């Protein structure tokens, strides 16, 4: 395989299996962003798309994107993860910090209110799993810990400033003493 073919396969792997986690010393193809894990134990590879080839182009074209079950709750849980994990919103969104899942649920509750507690937990869990399945968050269900996933690195600088505003408008998670 030539280098060209290697690059091709990296793009295809990302498409077929989501963001790729590789050993830190691995060679990586041109045009991919390297996201180093906080402990430098591994690296995520995420393709960098030029501005006018990103998913938000669909809106301009009036085309539908990938369908998401429970889109609103899923977006709210992602926002809650962002609020809890992105401890320094002035800085980059990756790698951010791990947060207890219960904290995320508490923020989710605060932005949805008045729901039956069980229904609320079920909705949060469904959304967290969905987000984890697509690489937007990393969710350790046994340890009940949530982190932001590699896909968050695909938000552009302009998009991150919108998210900072959202971050500020959301209730702060109650930190344990």
């Amino acid at each position, binding site marked *: 395989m030539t280098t060209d073919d290697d690059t*091709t396969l990296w793009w*295809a792997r990302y498409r077929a299996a*989501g963001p790729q986690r590789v050993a830190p010393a691995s060679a990586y193809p041109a045009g991919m962003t390297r996201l180093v894990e906080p402990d430098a134990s591994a690296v995520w590879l995420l393709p960098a798309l030029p501005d*006018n080839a990103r998913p938000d182009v*669909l809106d301009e074209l009036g085309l539908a994107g990938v369908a998401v*079950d429970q889109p609103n709750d899923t977006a709210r849980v992602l926002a809650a993860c962002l609020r809890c994990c992105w401890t320094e919103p002035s800085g980059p969104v990756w790698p951010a910090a791990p947060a207890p899942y219960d904290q995320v649920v508490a923020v989710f509750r605060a932005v949805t209110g008045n729901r039956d507690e069980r229904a609320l937990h079920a909705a949060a869990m469904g959304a967290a799993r969905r987000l984890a399945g697509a690489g937007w968050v990393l969710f350790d269900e046994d340890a009940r810990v949530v982190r932001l996933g590699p896909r968050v690195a695909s938000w552009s600088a302009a998009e991150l400033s919108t998210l900072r505003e959202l971050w500020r408008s959301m209730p702060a998670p109650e930190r344990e003493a």
Partner: protein
Amino acid sequence: MTIFDTVLADLNERHRDEVMAAFAALEHGREPVAEAQLLALRDATVRRDLQRLLFRMGRTLVRVGSTHWTSGFRDDVTAQLAAEGATAQSRVDRAVLVLVLIHSVAIPRSQGLIGGDSWTSGHPTPVDELTRYTQLPRGEIRPALQRLRAAGLVQIAPARGRAAPTDGPAYLPGPALHRLTKPARERLEHELILAAAPDSPLAAAIRARRPAAAAAVATPTRTSTTERNEDT
């Protein structure tokens, strides 16, 4: 140099924008896109540049019907990824998807109810066929259906035409199946026949043709396929 730089370097700004927009529409969109909607699909010259870009990413243009386009994995890349096991779907996900394809495509075909060569269909698979009448572990089917829905491989059938919403949901193959290239669609048909009726003369005929077909895939056809779209 990124793939985009390399492939699009020689294009003028307008063509570059058209190719990028079409790339985004095909790669990120839920459904195939109408040829009339985008210049890069309408104009054969620009479409060739789009195909070159997709090709470098392991993808290719896939024609849907006579008026729409989407993108999917190149056949040689599919073979490579499948051999590596680079996939987002678990075994039970795939088993459930196969059941939906049997009920929504294969059986209506045997009944003469559908034509065309698509793996999508308007014939719903009742959820009972998935949960009650199969050998799959019942508890794993719902999560599998959720994951398949997230990947666009199945979708919930519209309630229209069903007697009451309490009949329970029914499933259809999802829009992601449009992304199968023509050779992949045919291969899927053969794999299904081999699995469902391994002793049938049809299966024997498929097996008899296999070595030749495998050799054809292994032969590098790269230079010719970059320049043209294979699926028209």
